[in-house]
């Protein structure tokens, strides 16, 4: 960032930082609402689904349904016409993209984790692709072992899916708890360091400081692990940021994130696989599943990049502003960490999202 932009940024600092906080708040409220909803079942069953279905979402749903429905007829067609396999793969890819753009907790958890843990966009892409690959792999394994090798019933496969789902949700919750613990410490640290709050009022946006960030240096963040210098800071580099990814534990945590998100297979993929197996085209089903995963990964990665960029922008700007900057950054991180925990708990306690806990629970 050039010095000129820096000044602009300063003026905008508070406004945008507040905006980012508002986003975090909305996200948190949203998460809370899900958890609350999960605890008050609808008529003894699942909670009613989320009301916020925008026009875009409606459109996505429609496309997704179309692609999904076309899959069965395409698999049928592929029995006699080899070229239909290409169509199947194209549909699967599109379905993957649209599917991930719509429902599911994966991208929400990944995005929140990335924001909370100061991860880079590149790591976000790696996480997205790895978890989508794992998701496809789990689906293929369940159907290969369950349906192809052992010929168990759909109900039995659901049982396996349920165990995996619960493990995955528990992992997310544990993961979130850890993040909350760490980020809570940083947040409290920032709060204490910031006690004489230099007015968060918008009016103070006009106050100009030439030595941006100098007052950050002294902050005692209890959990700062190792210094990591961000490249694009205005003027000078900041004090240590809690970038755990640089340390050896960072990759371990990354793998934990991949497992947490990618363990649970998508019900749609399992249906497609079983259907393909019944049509004698299991390999086409497997190919379709992985292509679907590729599509999913692209969408999840895009959302992850978006989340990381927004966090970086908000962080950069708020750092330019008065001492409240660090507090705001820590606040956003803490909020995002809380979100991961809420997702985990929500998924565990009930059925956050319309995805039932078991594969096709309403009927099987």
């Amino acid at each position: 960032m050039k010095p000129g932009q820096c000044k602009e940024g300063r003026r905008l600092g508070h406004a945008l930082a507040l905006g980012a906080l508002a986003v975090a708040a909305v996200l948190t409220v949203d998460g809370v609402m899900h958890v609350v909803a999960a605890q008050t079942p609808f008529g003894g069953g699942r909670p009613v689904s989320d009301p916020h279905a925008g026009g875009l979402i409606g459109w996505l749903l429609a496309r997704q349904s179309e692609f999904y429905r076309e899959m069965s007829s395409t698999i049928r067609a592929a029995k006699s016409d080899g070229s239909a396999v290409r169509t199947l793969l194209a549909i699967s890819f599109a379905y993957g993209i649209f599917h991930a753009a719509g429902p599911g907790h994966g991208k929400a958890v990944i995005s929140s984790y990335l924001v909370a843990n100061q991860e880079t966009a590149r790591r976000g892409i790696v996480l997205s692709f790895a978890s989508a690959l794992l998701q496809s792999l789990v689906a293929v394994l369940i159907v290969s072992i369950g349906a192809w090798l052992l010929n168990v019933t759909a109900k039995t496969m659901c049982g396996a899916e349920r165990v995996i789902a619960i493990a995955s949700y528990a992992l997310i919750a544990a993961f979130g708890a850890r993040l909350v613990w760490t980020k809570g410490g940083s947040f409290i640290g920032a709060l204490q360091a910031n006690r004489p709050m230099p007015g968060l009022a918008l009016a103070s946006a006009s106050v100009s400081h030439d030595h941006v960030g100098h007052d950050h240096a002294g902050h005692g963040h209890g959990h700062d692990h190792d210094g990591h210098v961000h490249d694009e800071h205005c003027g000078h580099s900041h004090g240590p940021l809690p970038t755990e990814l640089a340390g050896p534990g960072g990759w371990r945590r990354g793998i934990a994130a991949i497992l947490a998100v990618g363990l649970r297979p998508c019900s749609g993929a399992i249906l497609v696989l079983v259907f393909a197996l019944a049509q004698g085209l299991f390999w086409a089903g497997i190919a379709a599943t992985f292509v679907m995963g590729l599509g999913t990964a692209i969408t999840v990665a895009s959302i992850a990049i978006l989340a990381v960029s927004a966090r970086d922008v908000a962080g950069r700007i708020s750092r330019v502003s008065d001492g409240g900057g660090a507090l705001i950054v820590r606040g956003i991180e803490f909020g995002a960490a809380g979100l991961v925990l809420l997702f985990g708990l929500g998924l565990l306690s009930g059925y956050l999202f319309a995805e039932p806990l078991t594969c096709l629970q309403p009927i099987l």
Partner: protein
Amino acid sequence: MKRARSRLIGWLLLACVGVFGATAAHAHPHVWITSASELIYAPDGSMTAVRHAWTFDDMFSTYALQGIESKTKGVYTHEELAPLAQTNVESLKEFAFFTFAKADGKKGRFLEPVDYFLEYKDGFLVLHFTLPLKTPIKTQELSLEIFDPTFFVDFKLADKDPVRLVGAPEGCKFGFQRPNDGAAGAQAMGEDNFLSGGNSNYGAMFANKITVMCP
């Protein structure tokens, strides 16, 4: 300055839409059911039960049949499918059988299903079951909705004879309303929903509503 500002705001908004939208949009059907229903009336003119015949889509039908043994390949008898039918009605119970009756502003309660069985026909599974009303309803206007509030299951009224009145008093008439092409409805109503934030019943937008008017 202006450009920088709008760019930054754009980023935040995009991120917001991305993450928020992603968590918000939960509904996505995995199962499609074509529903045909009979409304059963007692001689005294009260409605006593709803008899459903639900046809599952081919993908789900195949999936549900996975691992179920049959004497003749590709042919499944009612007996062979009995355990699966049992599972179906037991699972559906938790979701109130996706059937919601209303008369005079009051909800009609259903008892456990009776006479349930699965039929395998032309590659599709058809679930037949009868839902008796706890207390028979005698009223001039009655509505029956069939939908999944969470939209995991997409219900569609059968093209042919989606509703039939059995033993209803003379002069009773019925009408039905399909979700105006599900997806289109979602788009049109979605905006309102999003803005008002009030309507908490997303799946209701896809409801199939049957109305019966009796003299």
